[in-house]
């Protein structure tokens, strides 16, 4: 962060992602810590980190679609499912390498998302949320009712492990590096997208689509693009998910999972890539706590059985969404930014 009184004097410096030497240091340290994580922490934490990185890819996509372009999307899990199914079908039937299946999964999800994004050209607000819910139901229907030789029906599909030059990505640690590489590329790409021409168009459309249209932005195309990019991220995340779990079933991609992703970006903060990452971190931690504590509670209240984790997750996340919407609708990053800017301009009031 630049100290008080120093302002960017060119567009180039205004658009810079890394502004100070300390930020370079922090970034390098963070990446190094993540890379060394398998040697520093136990397998359980690596497993959690794997889930976090996959969720991060998907949540960043949702952040671009909802946080930057302002298009409500309650179908992110369906887009993720399209990616996961594409990757697993390609991997199990044609034996393509994951270097190809992951981008192809992203592309097929992007196509699916784009189709629903096209409706955004005609409708907005919560009507749009309704079409994304329809996407969710249609995805479910298609998987369960198409012939089971295509998409496995209700049995799901088993996915062969990812392989590169005879090296098999099996086990949490190997998976970790694969996920790390993809996540790093996707997040860096997201930073690039949101400060590019497209990103600025997204923000303009979100803030006022009429004004954006008058300024020469093709509003309908921008909205459809937002869905395309958001769904591409979801598809890539879904492919990673398929390789991690090695099994895809339609129950992994329900409306509830979509809402979980929405909760992540609400908690982290709308319109901030870092916010999406913070949200993923917090929500996944909450999920781990519930998964650890839940079974102990379940023993004392035995009639619930295995559903307590799902139920507890729903209660906590539903409460978190409602609380944040009422108390802090802009999320945690907003609070952080206020602190940062007041530190920056100190001792002046503004």
């Amino acid at each position, binding site marked *: 962060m630049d100290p008080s009184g120093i302002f960017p004097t060119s567009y180039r410096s205004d658009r810079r992602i890394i502004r100070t030497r300390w930020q370079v240091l922090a970034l390098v340290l963070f990446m190094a810590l993540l890379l060394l994580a398998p040697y520093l922490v136990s397998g359980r934490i690596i497993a959690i980190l794997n889930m976090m990185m996959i969720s991060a890819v998907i949540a960043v996509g949702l952040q671009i679609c909802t946080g930057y372009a302002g298009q409500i999307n309650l179908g992110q899990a369906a887009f993720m499912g399209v990616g996961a199914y594409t990757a697993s079908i390609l991997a199990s039937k044609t034996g393509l390498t994951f270097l190809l299946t992951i981008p192809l999964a992203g592309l097929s999800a992007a196509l699916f998302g784009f189709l629903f994004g096209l*409706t955004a050209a005609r409708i907005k607000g919560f009507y749009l949320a309704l079409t994304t819910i*329809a996407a969710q139901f249609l995805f479910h*229907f298609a998987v369960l009712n198409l012939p089971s030789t295509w998409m496995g029906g209700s049995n799901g599909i088993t996915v062969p492990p990812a392989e590169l030059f005879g090296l098999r990505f099996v086990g949490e640690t190997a998976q970790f590096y694969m996920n790390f590489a993809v996540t790093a590329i996707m997040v860096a790409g997201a930073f690039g997208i949101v400060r590019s021409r497209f990103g600025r168009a997204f923000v303009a459309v979100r803030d006022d689509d009429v004004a954006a249209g008058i300024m020469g932005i093709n509003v309908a195309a921008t909205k459809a693009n937002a869905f395309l990019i958001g769904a591409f991220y979801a598809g890539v995340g879904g492919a990673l998910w398929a390789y991690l779990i090695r099994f895809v079933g339609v129950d992994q991609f329900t409306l*509830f999972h979509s809402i979980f992703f929405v909760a992540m970006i609400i908690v982290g903060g709308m319109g901030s890539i870092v916010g999406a990452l913070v949200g993923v971190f917090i929500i996944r931690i909450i999920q781990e706590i519930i998964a650890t504590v839940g079974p102990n509670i379940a023993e004392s209240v035995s009639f619930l059985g295995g559903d307590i984790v799902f139920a507890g997750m729903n209660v906590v996340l539903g409460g*978190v969404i409602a609380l944040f919407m009422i108390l802090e609708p802009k999320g945690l990053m907003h609070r952080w930014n206020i602190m940062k800017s007041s530190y920056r301009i100190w001792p002046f009031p503004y």
Partner: protein
Amino acid sequence: MVYFINDIITGALIGLLYSLVAMGFVVIYRASKVFNFAQGELVIIGGFIVWFTTMQAGLSLWLSIPLSLVLAGLVGYAIERIFLTKLIGESVFSMVMVTVGLLILLRGLVLLVFGPAVRPFPIIFPLKPLFLGDMLIPMNLLMGGIITIVAAVGLSWFFNRTRSGLRMTAVAEDHVVASSMGISVKGSIAFAWVLGAILSTIGAMIFLSGKSLTFLASDIGFAALPVALFAGLESIGGLILAGIIIGIAQSLTTNYLDPLIGGSLGSVVPYIIMLAILLIRPTGLFGWRTIERV
């Protein structure tokens, strides 16, 4: 031919049940401009309240039904007080997201409190179907259809003709304008949620009468969503027509198309209709033309 007519009648009656649940959406929208995604959860909560007062507390039906409706109204009021009063005047996004949050919050609470067990639901309407010649009409759906039509006519009259109903309509137009005209936005929203919860409970009674009750029954909320949209979110009378059309379309698909293709297309027909409506005529059949085209 008899079977065909029977399918149409049954379909229309199921459609009317969807209309009743959809009426919950519309009443809440019509009096507060909030689209309530958690409608299906309200149905389930209503169902559990009825189950509790009859099966657990052992009250007779004549006592438990009014009591359940009062309790459901209180739940609706509590939800409104806790979550929605604070959002008056906020953006559409906040309102939508709060009801989405409510959707998973209530689902989780129902699971935590009642568990995933399957429970018998009291028989509120006679189990014996009505025989018309060779045709067979389920009694609960028939009675439900009559209740739906009566409720629709009554509420339609209330919102379009009476003074307090028109006040609420003003709230649905714009919160700020309504409150500066001296209309109590809070009161209107509270009334809407109480009414929405009561309608959902009636829907639960018709839907579940004599069947079993689990938390999965809340799916009817999403089945009713296309009906609300097809009618247009502001029209209560239009729900009847929309419900009948969607119900018949679903029934015919289930009975005649599904055996051919060997799938369950019937369950997804409402959503296909919904997508078509959103693309062709987003205001629905009788909705106000307020949707901004871009």
